[in-house]
């Protein structure tokens, strides 16, 4: 039952409990969203809007606290919206949070599961790794980032994985390797039943190519451009196995062997110029305000 007075008609306050930088370009936010916290399952996402002028952006739900009615989000500071998020303080609020959206990850006992997370992709892979472990899988984690300070959730991943391989491109922490190299070694050493890979598109494509010859089931989670997140706009359409699918209501996870990654890359670049302009103007205003 919803608590009486929980909603002011037409408006719900999503109070921020925690907002902190966990790396130079990644923030962690814990925010009140009781409906989302109540219904969310691993693999699902929300749409959020920072303020009245804001864009709606999708973000994976990394964790929930049902009792507190809060959700945990990790966001990479890549554009105006996420930059604004990084400036919000505990006690402040987000204008809108809608979700959970998308199909949950199909959690069952596959046997040995390798969870590969690259960059910010470690945030969505973490709850999936935890859920797969709970279901009795032997979970091996592979996480990577360009350099040590960009690596997130290493400790948390360590807690839910039987084994965790940490890679950095520059060797500043863990192994100097790409996640694909670590995955290749694991695949050579033992039988892998499922791979879940979340990260930059080139990484997900590379992992999918790597597992294709042996036919290991490979799930990827796509970060398509979305407006509503409920099937209405079709902006998130991707080609999977030659068919048009909507990331929001058919995904966000798809069989990596069937996704047309080239097309996804192209569509992700649709607003590159506008995003740059938006960020530039935002920075100008911020700097103007300081002087």
């Amino acid at each position, binding site marked *: *039952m*919803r608590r009486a007075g929980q*909603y002011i*008609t*037409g*408006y*719900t306050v999503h109070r921020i409990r925690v907002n902190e930088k966990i790396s130079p370009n990644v923030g962690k936010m814990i925010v009140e969203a009781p*409906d*989302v916290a*109540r*219904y969310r399952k691993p693999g699902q996402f929300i749409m959020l*809007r920072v303020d009245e*002028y*804001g*864009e*709606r952006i999708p973000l994976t739900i990394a964790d929930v606290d049902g009792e507190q009615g809060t959700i945990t989000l990790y966001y990479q500071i890549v554009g*105006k*919206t996420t930059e604004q998020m990084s400036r919000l303080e505990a006690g402040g609020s987000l*204008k*809108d*949070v*809608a*979700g*959970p*959206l*998308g199909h949950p990850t199909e959690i069952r006992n596959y046997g040995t599961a390798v969870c590969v997370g690259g960059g910010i992709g470690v945030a969505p892979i973490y709850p999936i790794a935890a859920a797969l472990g709970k279901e009795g899988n032997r979970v091996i984690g592979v996480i990577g980032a360009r350099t040590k300070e960009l690596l997130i959730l290493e400790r948390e991943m360590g807690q839910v994985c039987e084994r965790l391989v940490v890679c950095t491109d520059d060797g500043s922490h863990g192994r100097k390797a790409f996640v694909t190299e670590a995955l290749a070694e694991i695949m050579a050493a033992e039988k892998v039943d499922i791979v879940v890979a979340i990260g930059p598109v080139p990484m997900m494509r590379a992992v999918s190519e790597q597992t294709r010859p042996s036919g290991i089931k490979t799930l990827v989670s796509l970060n398509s451009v979305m*407006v*509503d997140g*409920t*099937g*209405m*706009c*079709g*902006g998130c*359409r*991707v*080609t999977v196995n030659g068919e*048009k699918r*909507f990331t929001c*209501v058919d995904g966000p996870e798809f069989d990596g062997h069937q996704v047309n990654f080239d*097309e996804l890359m*192209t*569509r992700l*670049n*649709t*607003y590159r110029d*506008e*995003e740059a*302009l*938006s960020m530039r*103007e935002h920075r100008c205003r911020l700097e103007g305000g300081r002087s």
Partner: protein
Amino acid sequence: MKEKIPRQPMPEQPPAERVRNFKEVPLGYSDETARLEASRCLQCKRPTCVDGCPVRIDIPGFIKAIRDGDFLESIRVIKLTNSLPAVCGRVCPQEEQCEQLCVLTKKGESVAIGKLERFAADYEREREQLEIRASAERKNGRVAVLGSGPAGLTAAGELAKLGYRVTVFEAFHSAGGVLVYGIPEFRLPKAIVQYEVDALAKLGVEIVLNRVVGSAGTVNELLAEGYDAVFIGTGAGLPLFLEIPGENLQGVYSANEYLTRANLMKAYKFPEYDTPIARGDSIAVVGGGNVAMDSARMALRLGSKKVHLIYRRSRAEMPARVEEVHHAEEEGVIFQLLTNPVRFIGDEKGRLKAVECVRMELGEPDDSGRRRPVVVKGSEFTIDADVAIVAIGNGPNPLIPRTTPGLALNKWGNIVADEESMKTSRKGVFAGGDIVTGAATVILAMGAGRKAALAIDTYLQTGEW
């Protein structure tokens, strides 16, 4: 014999001016013009116009009140059966409903029923004089309304007036459904929608935004958690595409996405508002309905130099309102009729640069009774376009059907509901609007919302299904 009064035109922003702004195009009648137009009504004893109205407004009744200068009485008459007259006066296809059946149509021009309806509604809204009449009697029963579009708003309003406790769940951050995300400001000012939503709130309807029922809780859970009935009015939420090569290039939009960015997200004010939209020099819109016209006219206002509207049949078969077609043409939209796209052509970066089309001719009638367009062999040609907008309709959104066991669907995935009671196959669950009919009109959705409210009242009072 007195001189015959011609149908009174409504003043409009001139085309050259209005394509540079987003303000409403028709400006409304003055009191005098409205009374003059109302005086044209013959006050038929057996008014055929009413038969053409899906919500059976007492048309001669409200027009007589306008004629007599009692404008508040006229809106009171309208609101007995139509809870959103300011909307309907603007977006209903009157020429194929009430006005088509007006006796004067045979003699020349019908009474401008839609424009008079708009006048009455605007008069009241601008003065905020009409008190909202909720039933003094509170009735036992809580109703959940899913979706805040025309069907949901109407059902919620009627139920609240009957004395029920109503909660509307809306997936977006703003209430109004297609009235806010789909229909542009220049055709339906958003302040009007907000006024209607506020009126619901004043009636005591609780409106919960950002709540995607089907994903955040299910119909079953609502029924288990204290709601006695559920009305599903979630609309036609899944855009159809042409399924031709190149449709996923950058710059190809569904009309839903294009209009939602422009309207709901205010991309026309980018970068003041954060949501971007592709602004091309040359635009190709595919489709012949109101949504296609809205998209084409929006593209002009976003600064496009050339806007082509590609439609596979001829002008006579266009499903859009006559007024929308007329406005689009006045504003300079280039009509490519009897034309069908076969391929979107991109550049090396994956951006749209042209649409390859073929010319069509009309053959034998198809199932819809309209003559089927067939390809003219060897007629391929290309239209340069950096943005294309596909406006060929919507399928039903899967979120509610997928999560509501036992809810009967038809072969297209629309919810099956009784035509009169809007009852579905699930006890206590009613549905209406586009989720039942497939893409239709605002007024039909409202009619369904109204019928459902009455049926819900009966169900809650008798307990009989």
